């Protein structure tokens, strides 16, 4: 077990005034077997009365509307999380599990991923968990991390074809391969120890348990990850989403820090 402190700051500066803005933020750690969040503090600017709720997958969300003109918007969420309390997460809602067996949105395999999958020869490996770990090890060797070459709409197949991408792409491709192997898999957004950006990884469902695997770092998820949200693909659990009237050009700054305490 490890105790982590996290600090998530996202700020947008606008070149012109924003008249109204709607926002949804999915950045509050979930509570489950592997992690327990505590001391969560939420700060928004311009200060507005926000609502708390859960989406269809029980991800926490903060949402609301700014009605006064502003040229800057930020949210700052801090807190602690005890992680690594268990090597897996429980199934929160067994009725939804079957959703994660089916390709959807950005995680669909095309010819190139299918070809790669066929070469992996997973038949010789008995358990689904071992298959997944084997794929993670192989894929880590075969795919490169390279920022700024993909965007939020890049599909697994596109990202695979170009041979490199970021954590989102690693996760989408990995899910596509898991689906080909008939292993239910889902996308996870979260934070990892260190300074930088938010992170993404994958959970696979084996024997009624969700196991976290981080294909970008070739690591099992245990002591270093804080889970914020889950979805079929990145679009289901975007950390923030907003719609504004006015604003002109946007400049976004994200600062994330996670450290052991």
């Amino acid at each position, binding site marked *: 077990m490890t105790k982590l402190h996290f600090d998530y700051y996202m700020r947008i500066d606008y070149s012109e005034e924003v008249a109204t803005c709607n926002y949804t933020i999915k950045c509050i750690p979930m509570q489950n077997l592997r992690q327990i969040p505590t001391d969560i503090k939420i700060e928004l600017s311009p200060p507005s009365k926000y609502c708390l709720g859960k989406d269809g997958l029980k991800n926490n969300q903060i*949402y609301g*509307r700014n009605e006064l003109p502003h040229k800057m918007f930020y949210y700052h969420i801090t807190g602690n999380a005890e992680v690594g309390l268990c090597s897996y997460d429980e199934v929160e809602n067994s009725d939804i599990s079957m959703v994660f067996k089916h390709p959807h949105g950005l995680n669909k395999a095309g010819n190139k991923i299918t070809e790669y999958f066929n070469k992996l020869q997973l038949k010789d490996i008995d358990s689904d968990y071992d298959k997944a770990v084997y794929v993670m090890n192989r894929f880590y060797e075969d795919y490169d991390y390279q920022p700024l070459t993909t965007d939020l709409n890049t599909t697994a197949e596109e990202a695979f074809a170009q041979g490199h991408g970021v954590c989102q792409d690693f996760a989408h491709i990995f899910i596509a391969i898991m689906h080909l192997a008939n292993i239910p898999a889902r996308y996870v957004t979260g934070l990892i120890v260190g300074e930088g950006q938010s992170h993404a990884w994958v959970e696979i469902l084996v024997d009624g348990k969700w196991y976290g695997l981080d294909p970008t770092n070739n690591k099992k998820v245990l002591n270093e990850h804080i889970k914020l949200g889950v979805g079929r693909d990145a679009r289901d659990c975007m950390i923030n989403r907003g*719609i504004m009237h006015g604003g002109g050009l946007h400049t976004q700054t994200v600062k994330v820090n996670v450290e052991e305490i």
Partner: protein
Amino acid sequence: MERLSLLEHTDTVNELLARYGVKFGIYKNNTFHEQLFPFDAIPRIIEADEFEYLEKGLKQRVVALNLFLKDIYSKKQIVKDGVVPEDFIFASSGYMLECEGVAPIKDIYSHISGIDLVKGKDGVWYILEDNLRVPSGASYPMIAREFCRRSSPETFANLKVEENRDYAELLRRTMDNVNVGGHTVILTPGRYNAAYFEHSFLAEKTGCHLVNGSELEVKDDKLYFKTATGELERVGVVYRRISDEYLDPMNFNPESLIGIPHIYDVFRKGNVALMNAPGNGVADDKGIYYFVPKMIKYYLGEEPILNNAPTYLPFYEDDYKYVIDNFDNLVLKDVAEAGGYGVVFGNKMTKEQKADFLELLRKEPRRFIAQEVIDFQDLDIIDKNEQVPRKADLRAFVLMADEPLVWKSGLTRFSRNPDSFIVNSSQGGGFKDTWVLSR
């Protein structure tokens, strides 16, 4: 004799319809056209006992479809029990993950259902399609009846035809049943929407506000209507035609400009009713249609009163073989399409088209259903002063209020082309009033 008198007024009725703006809009090649919806004065007549049978069957079907929707967005028991395969739910574009675990007020998903039927030459009624995403069309026979009465009152003097102007009351009762406290509004995407006439007509007849997205606003988990003076008044129920994807840019398609940000969050917390509930597309998919008789047995333990047209799912191997062997006798439908698009007749394809289609079917069997071509009864219409037979269907409207209600009328659509089976208004068809006799 009496009916003849009405027929003499066909032109008058059509002129009135045009003057009152009874039109529907269609997009062709990305431009918007508004068309008149040609009215034919010869009504479809349904006897009282025949309608009583239809009514029972329609209620049964809609009750089962509502139970199915509730099940799909919660326990999924029908999938776990193997009655409906997973592929037909989770690969369907109508399934919406955002709707998981959200219970609409009183568990009603499909408040307004439009069930399309045809009557075969054998006298048997067949269901062709279920429309559970706020189907349009009720306003046309309503207003046509009004004009027919006005132009030819003598026609109705001695006939025992069920009144159809009560649709507004039935609709209001359906809205009031789920209202959580506040105004009732009809949300329209605007005058460039196919059903704009209907929205404004129903708003007037039910006494509701007709609003567009910019007049509604979410604040503190409640929905408000902005009055002309800028005050906010609470909304308790929204009749909406805006499709699920465009309803709320914060929960669904982020590019929607016509939606209301966070309206689905309000719905999720039970602070407003949406008619119909989002997510219904998973139940009126043409692939799911095949399973509706099975749903009726599964949820209600009853035999279906109304039949589906004989349907095959190439997804199943036996059905796939049957479809290949009997290709020329079948009509094939793309499950994702609506409005008469994506429908092909096996015997009307060229050799190349057929080969291409068979290849597509082999690759994507889940995408199509195949049906026997039903030889349905023609209805007479007046075409250039001549009485000629044409293909016609019936859209019956079932409202789910405190109990299921079937409107004693319906929209009868016909094809103006003598060789066509496709009656959709978007494909140039016309309409008739539907008379249900009261005895």
